[in-house]
């Protein structure tokens, strides 16, 4: 019932690199849907811009800035090139830190699929 953090990491490893490969025509529509879902549900915390006075970023972005400080990993999810769709889906359905999980009445499985594909769109092709 409860996926452990170890299994999340395992998923990341097993899933390997991202989704960028020869895409069917409907892929563009899926990415557009994914961006809509991302803009609605994720940007209020993970977008660019300021947070509360005294915070230089929105809370999700600020947390990832702390996590990836000193690396070349962007704190903005839309700029990432290493987000594996399966990992995105596990985080959305389980939550992490102070981010709660999202229910299927909020983000349906199809919408989550699209959003995960959108966040993986920048990944380098699988070799």
């Amino acid at each position: 019932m409860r996926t452990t953090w170890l299994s999340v990491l395992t998923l990341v490893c097993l899933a390997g690199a991202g989704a960028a490969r020869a895409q069917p025509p409907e892929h563009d529509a899926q990415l557009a849907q994914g961006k809509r879902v991302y803009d609605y549900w994720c940007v209020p915390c993970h977008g660019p811009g300021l947070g509360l006075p005294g915070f230089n970023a929105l809370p999700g972005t600020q947390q990832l800035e702390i996590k990836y400080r000193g690396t070349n990993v962007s704190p903005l999810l839309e700029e990432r090139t290493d987000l594996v769709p399966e990992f995105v889906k596990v985080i959305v359905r389980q939550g992490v830190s102070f981010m709660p999980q999202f229910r299927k009445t909020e983000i349906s499985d199809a919408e989550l699929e699209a959003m995960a594909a959108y966040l993986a769109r920048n990944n380098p092709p699988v070799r």
Partner: protein
Amino acid sequence: MPSPPPGVSAADFATALRKFETAVGEQWVFKSDEDAALYRDAYSPERDEPTERLASAAVAPVTVDQVQQVVRIANEHKIPLYPISTGKNLGYGGSAPILSGSVVVDLKRMNRILSVDAGRCQAIVEPGVSYFDLYRYIQERDLEVWIDTPDPGWGSVVGNALDHGVGYTYGQYRDHFGSHCGMEVVLPNGELMRTGMAALANDAAWADYKYGFGPYVAGLFGQANFGIVTKMGFWLLPRPEAYRRGTVSVPKRRDIVALVEHVNYLENLGLIGMPGFRSPLGFAQAREPDLRALVAKPGGPSDEELDRFAESKGIPSWSVELQFYGPEKTIAGSWDYVQQRIGASIPGARFEEGVVYRFPLTVEQQAEVQRVHRLVDIGVPNMSIFAIAGGRTAQNPDSADGGQFYFAPMIPRTGEAILEANRVLGEAYRDAGLPYNQYFSAPACWHYRAFIMITSLPVSRLNPEINRRSRAAFRAIAQVAAEHGWGEYRSPPFGVDLVAGAYSFNDHALRRFCETLKDAVDPNGIIAAGRGGIWPKHLRGSRA
């Protein structure tokens, strides 16, 4: 097949789930363990413990008729239901039921904005509508009204009001239940009822007048379990011409008494929105080791010692940020009046001009606003408050932990009460082994005729010991608060009986009255067992 709710046979539960599927569609009944887990309280202080409140399943109707069908089916099979709106009541239970095994009725799909009338400054919405949704609807149509929003913008307008949630502008709007006008409710027998003017056959004045005729029963549906609310009307602010902010600082510790009296006067006259009390001296502890030493000394510092330190450093003991909304000249005049009134009354009071905006703001101006204060002050929903919800820090950048719940006692709206509450709660927190800013904590002013001495208690996804300590502290401190006449205005699920139990006048006459009502309108006890500390008869021995 999930485990059935307490007291329900597996066969009855299976039958009920099949009927739910017929009512709402198979894909909108969530009965796998994986799907039911999506309804866990993400900030549960009982996470992974046997007492964690878990749903057995969830059902997500999209129409009022479907809600009625779900309730009737639940009655037939005695299935406990727990309605949620957007499920974002984090810190107070989130999307989880109070009674484990309940079937969550997830109203998120009921997300229609039925009307926004800018001329009459009102809206009627369904429970799945978030503050973001309503704000966007208004912005897209350039309607000249504002919403009053709580900190997290993803919350339900209806759900927040029903949990007595709060915002930031004028008192009559930031009391979100108080600003509602007319509601529609599915009663525990499945019947549909409306309150106020919405109860007329012609509901044209739904959100114009609260009381209609006869008893005002709408209050029974906030923090309670007498039905499932499916629509609510709300009063909106007219978009003001301008916003102004100013800060008043006072030098001495006991100046808080006079300062509160002045601010109360201003607010009771409708001249200001939510005041924001602070202690600049308290903030100075981080950079002033001598002040920290003074605070930590045995017996604590006297008022005179704190005043001497404050004077030596030129740091005010207290300040209050005042918000003015209205015509530009009018609010400039109000700020002048504040300076004259308080300047003539409190020696050493200082006044600092704040920002002034004219509305509507451009996108660029709105971004600039965020540099200086919270967007919620001008009715713009956002999620920035989560910056203070824990999580990763520079010292612990890999933490996957975070979350909190709240202890929120109401105290009288006086400076004396602030000082007394700090003394009493400081000792209670110290006894509980948790930190508390004993000499400098300022109240939240969300509910405008009382102060809320709110503090957060940490929650851990990973360390049950942190959760046990927070729960124990809540219980101990709530007990102390109750002895001083300070009851909480909201509660996490594990605390509902403790909090409700403090309202004990005349051998718990209030609770007994609610139980009498509960037995009459919900004899099978199917709606939100435990909410508001009200339990159906067959569960009264269990409690939370």
